[in-house]
């Protein structure tokens, strides 16, 4: 497992390749990249600032990855989440999961994102033409997480 909270950008291709090359019996790598959209709730977004809770955030992410590893037969996970001020179209988060077969990697990758969205201490503040605003948590994210408990 590699978990990182960082201001620097990441290279999704490089991280995917690392997982591929780690074991010769890897059959599948599923990855997710989340990006700063230039549009949110109808407003133009020029930048996004991500705050986190140093210490707790890393622990929360590791706990989520551990849960995924105990639920599915996966080989490895790379999770990188950026913090600080990001411009529109910038990369925010990467989750990459390797496994022998595709079904497990798909499930684990989506599970990690759904839990990250609702359990990991990050907060987003957008800059639009009318100023700064903190984003509200979405009930659709709570629902996405609840699916995994059914």
């Amino acid at each position: 497992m590699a978990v990182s909270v960082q201001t620097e950008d990441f290279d999704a291709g490089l991280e995917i390749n690392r997982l591929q090359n780690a074991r010769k019996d890897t059959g599948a790598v599923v990855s997710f990249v989340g990006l700063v959209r230039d549009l949110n709730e109808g407003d133009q977004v020029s930048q996004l600032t991500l705050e986190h809770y140093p210490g707790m955030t890393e622990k929360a992410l590791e706990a989520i990855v551990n849960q995924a590893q105990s639920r599915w037969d996966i080989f490895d996970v790379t999770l990188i989440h950026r913090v600080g001020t990001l411009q529109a179209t910038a990369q925010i988060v990467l989750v990459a999961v390797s496994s022998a077969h595709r079904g497990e990697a798909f499930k684990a990758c989506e599970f990690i994102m759904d839990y990250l969205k609702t359990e990991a201490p990050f907060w987003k503040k957008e800059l639009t033409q009318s100023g700064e605003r903190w984003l509200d948590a979405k009930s659709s994210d709570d629902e996405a997480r609840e699916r995994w408990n059914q």
Partner: protein
Amino acid sequence: MKIKIFYFARLKETLKFSTEDLELPDDAFANTLTILKLKAHLAKRSDVWQQMLMGKLKVRGAINHALVDDNALIVDGDEVAFFPPVTGG
């Protein structure tokens, strides 16, 4: 008892506090201080504190880096944090 408190995001910005060391009288709080009691105690500081901690913003609490609910017990030396629902990813 002494505890450390962190505030994040909208709370930090509105309360203009990012962290504080708080000393509480043992006779009033030892072994009985919960997240909810601490919120109520802090809310007495001003209307803004009342609104932020006990208002419609669903404040979440953490003790020593673990998310907890309102009934969780805080003990001497704990690191407590308050923040709005998370919005990362």
